[in-house]
């Protein structure tokens, strides 16, 4: 079964015919070609596929695309503002918070939403806010440092 939905993706309003069993992950990655969204487990555990729906971080592998009708989706490709890196993106580069980079888009989006809510968090608050995003390379120290740096900026 297909269904027509209206959805805004990274600021662009789209009307799409999609199958009703598609996940949001399938829609953004396979159909719209936004490859910055990564799949690490397809079970909603690792956080790699995180995107924002109306500014709220969501595991796109667990979200049905048809449920996003009328909503606004932001992927990593939409995090830049007017082509400029988001302060978090710059902080991740500067702090050496990126290794293999596979978890990075999901973490950046999770933290971008979090800093909107809490612009000046403590380090412990950042740790807690990031508990649902797994990284196997960095040991997290530099990721937390980068978020603190971006929040202070």
């Amino acid at each position: 079964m297909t269904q027509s939905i209206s959805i805004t993706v990274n600021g662009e309003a789209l009307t799409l015919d999609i199958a009703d069993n598609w996940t949001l992950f399938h829609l953004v990655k396979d159909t719209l070609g936004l490859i910055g969204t990564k799949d690490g487990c397809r079970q909603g555990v690792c956080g790699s596929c995180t995107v924002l729906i109306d500014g709220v971080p969501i595991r796109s592998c667990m979200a049905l695309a048809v449920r996003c009708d009328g909503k606004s989706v932001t992927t990593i490709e939409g995090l830049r503002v007017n082509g400029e890196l988001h302060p978090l993106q710059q902080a991740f580069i500067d702090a050496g918070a990126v290794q293999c980079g596979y978890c990075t888009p999901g973490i950046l989006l999770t933290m971008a939403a979090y800093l909107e809510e809490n612009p000046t968090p403590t380090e412990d608050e950042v740790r807690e806010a990031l508990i649902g995003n797994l990284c196997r390379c960095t040991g997290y120290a530099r990721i937390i440092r980068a978020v603190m740096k971006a929040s202070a900026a």
Partner: protein
Amino acid sequence: MDVKTKHAPSFRYVGKPIKRGEAVDKVKGQWVYGTDLVLPGMLYAKALRSPYPHARIVSVDVSRAWRLAGIRVAITGKDVDYLFGSAIRDEPFIARDKVCYAGEPVAAVAAMSEEIAREAIDLIDVEYEELPCVFDPLEAMKDGAPLVHEKLGSYAAESTFTTYPGTNICNHTKIRRGDVERGFSEADEVYEDVYTTQYVQHCPLETHVGIAQIASDGAVTMWSNSQAPYNFVRDMGNALDLPYNMIRIISTGIGGGFGSKIYLRPEPLAVALAKFADGKPVKHAFTREEEFTSCVTKHPTHLTFKTGVKRDGTLVARKITAIFNTGGYADTGPQVARNGAFSGTGPYRLDNIWVDSYCVYTNNPQAGAFRGYGVPQLTWAHESQMDDIAYRLGIDPVEIRMRNLFELGDTTCTGEVLRTSVGAKETLRRAVEVSDFGKPLAPSGNPKIARGRGLATMHKLTYTPTTSTAIIKMHQDGTINILSSTLEMGQGIYTALRQIVAERLELPLEHIRISPPDTDYTPYDQTTSGSRSVFHMGNALMLASGHLIDQLRELGCQQLDCLIDEAEYREGAVWRKNTNEFLSACDIITGHFGPRGSTIQGQGTFTPPGAKVPDKENGQSPKVSAFWMYATHVADVEVDIETGQVTVLRVVAAHDAGRIINPDGAEAQIEGGVVQGLGATLHEEMIVKDGIILNPTFAEYKIPATMDVPEIIPVFVETEHDEGPYGAKGLGEPVLAPISPAVANAVFDAVGVRIPSLPITPGKVLCALEENRRTGGSMKEGA
């Protein structure tokens, strides 16, 4: 003095914290990984996997799968008669007669979508007849145990292994040095202890992906997130009996490897399907569950250490029996078990040594390369026992190590005399100093929380001999492309290699780019693993740079009308010595080749000089490793006496990695490695019952998250290596090894119990505490 610190020259790039270049693409979501790749006409593969760990395949029927719309290929083991394997060619692309582990493919499909492929495998009918199984490697070594491979002995195998056909032993590594029995008789005390390690999964965030396409002439192209494309050329070429120039590996971005992506895993099935796909590319991406069931894991080990010591703590003799449970197929297990053995007696002087390391087939999941390649397991044992011995003799853990640690001129268990860069003692000194090891820890303030501090020292070899080759291509405008097959998988190697070349060629770092590996174009590199890349590829690039400079000088002196000896290379130009006359690289290339120019290629091949595979009978070799890395970790822990929970408060990690090329990247390697090691120390374990993995998901198999991370203090001891590029050695792998015993030793310090088996779970700690109470053991007072 065992530490060599040369006069430090002033470097432009070496030793500087240069930010990694590819991070920009990564934060923007533009770095393309294997999972991201979609090719024109691509089909999606899916395997049907055996639910049984050991069973005869009576029949496989794929006819119902063919009825689905969108199905393009459906095959069984009967359709592809190939065996692969890096050490022993024992593994079919798809099981034919029997399965040797649960999770082995028995049939496969390729379809127009992932969804159709998933649906199709549910329509395949398989009849199995269960066979007697063997899961415990100690049982598997006994006479009369069920055989996992009746055909062992008939498989093609590397001649450096000792296999015993008619048994489950697929490699036996022997080290014989001195007279171990006489050593024991001369010792004041002899202790025998057993230590064990568990199943750990690599868990790269990106799963394994192989895409295969076969041309009309049979040439195979694979897109892969592999750490070692040239391994794939050789192993796939051998499996298909194809000339190596008909195998091409195009590397994609890699979302973490940790050793799991060194050898063929999803690729054979992709190739098998591609043979029937009429030229279409076939993508086989592992699911997260397949990463657990059908990939490779860290080897669980059973380690018996018998050690003779003098009363003052001097080590006299050591006998080790190490048993590596390698599962249903060998993969690289024989190499891992051998490599572990070579480090097994620790970084300590010992005259009398006897090591037997066995790699044993069972009907369990396959084990293979894991960051550290067998060394973390042996380190777990020698460093746990070191503290056990120190405690029994009443000697301080630092003192007993200082008494025995290697210095320049000492000989390893493999008979190699250490002639350069032995920083073992210095890592211990520095770790002790930075951690204030000698001073008591502040009490927790809670009588139920005991605090303790422990340390562990280790050494690690790198797989040797291996070769790296590189081409440095200079364009007419003087800018550089590095052609190498070393892979960036998060460890920061692209940045380090660019720093080395920029330093050597005295060029701006921005002028040096690395071309992505593609085996049709980039020359041989054995593998990106074993902490070998900075040393081996760094040296190949030094040689290639020298070759490029020689050519520029040669062409430059003709144009400057001077002798070659008068032509001097500096900063991308050739100067006539002691004059102000010079020609830029651009001038030289244009002058020689005309206005349209050309490129100039410098090439370099590096194999460590004097390296030799050890003798099969005694494990002796003049050089078993291109270089040795050393480290000492100190862990401060808290133990909850009521719950058994161990919390690590702080880790000081002192490493001798030779000269550090990029301190920023090196510190990041330590931070990440310590945390990965802590996962394996405290909680990570694949629970395997009767060959079946009970926790094959991220929800049930927990890797460390943000709340699990202690303070980590990296320390570098830069003992330069005579043969390393600018004195560098390697770093990534050793980080994982000392952390586990350091934590175990800290737990002992805190509550007086020895946990000899990884991981150190609350349950084990509680049981040990209870046992101590019952037997009136040596439990210390809670802090």
